């Protein structure tokens, strides 16, 4: 029984590669193929929006994959390919937006919030430390 389950699970992991949209490899060179796969996983499908172009079969996604393949083939750098996409579709097209003026808030807001939370926490704890410790019943007679 156990062996069957394991075999079934093993088959499931195999099938994910069969589900990939491109039936054939984009590049013979493993290094280029790896770059291609990393890029298509980071580009948002502009029509479907919550999917990357690697997983989407929308035609715009396949067109964008084709453009990325073409640019990698032409020897363009990842930076050049990303700016090709951002010029046309804006920062939204990249799942990992670049660090620049317009996206600054996106990048630093989480850190600011943590900082603010930490500051608030310290203040509350400090304040509580100054309160007298009372073990006995309070004015209402309740046990704290």
């Amino acid at each position, binding site marked *: 029984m156990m062996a069957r389950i394991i075999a079934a699970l093993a088959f499931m992991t195999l099938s994910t590669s069969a589900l990939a949209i491109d039936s054939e490899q984009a590049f013979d060179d493993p290094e280029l193929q790896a770059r291609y796969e990393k890029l298509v996983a980071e580009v948002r499908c502009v029509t479907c929006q919550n999917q990357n172009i690697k997983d989407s079969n929308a035609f*715009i996604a396949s*067109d964008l994959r084709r453009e990325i393949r073409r640019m990698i083939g032409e020897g363009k750098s990842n930076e050049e390919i990303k700016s090709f996409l951002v010029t*046309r579709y804006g920062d939204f097209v990249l799942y990992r937006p670049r660090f620049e003026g317009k996206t600054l808030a996106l990048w630093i807001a989480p850190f600011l919030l943590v900082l603010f939370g930490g500051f608030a926490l310290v203040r509350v704890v400090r304040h509580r430390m100054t309160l007298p410790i009372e073990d006995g019943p309070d004015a209402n007679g309740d046990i704290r």
Partner: protein
Amino acid sequence: MNRFLLPLVAVLIIIPIFILGLQSDPSELPSQYIGKPAPEFSLPTLADPAKTFSNEDLKGQVSLVNIWATWCGGCRTEHPFLMELARSNTIPIYAINWRDNRPAALSFLEQLGNAYVASGFDEDGRVGIDWGAYGAPETFLINEEGTVVYRFTGPLNRTLWEQEFVPRIAELKK
């Protein structure tokens, strides 16, 4: 009292941001070309592959560029309005026929009427990508210098036209 002041101020700042966020349509992508020259392109026309339609055709007039295709339901919906607009001679309408099939596109225009001064045939979708198109129909308003003034996504109708385009065109022709 004081201990409530800070959270209250924080909430008062956050609520308007949320209200703004709820009102905007997250599926709508702003065009990257507003205020910039329309992307360079040159396409064979749908009607005659020997002729071309390019940026040059757009210069010297206020015009519309409509991205359409026969596979696009919204394009069929808005077509009667585009016909009406074309007949009224308000503004020349150019088109990019996006990722389509030539015979199908030609028969679409034959059946429903041709609202376009010229339709570029973008068979592989390259020019659509250059324009930042993410779904048809899309309608761009182009000024006399060939600069993109506005982009509207989705099927147009009389009400939307009067709301979104008429004031902008009046501004351009002032």
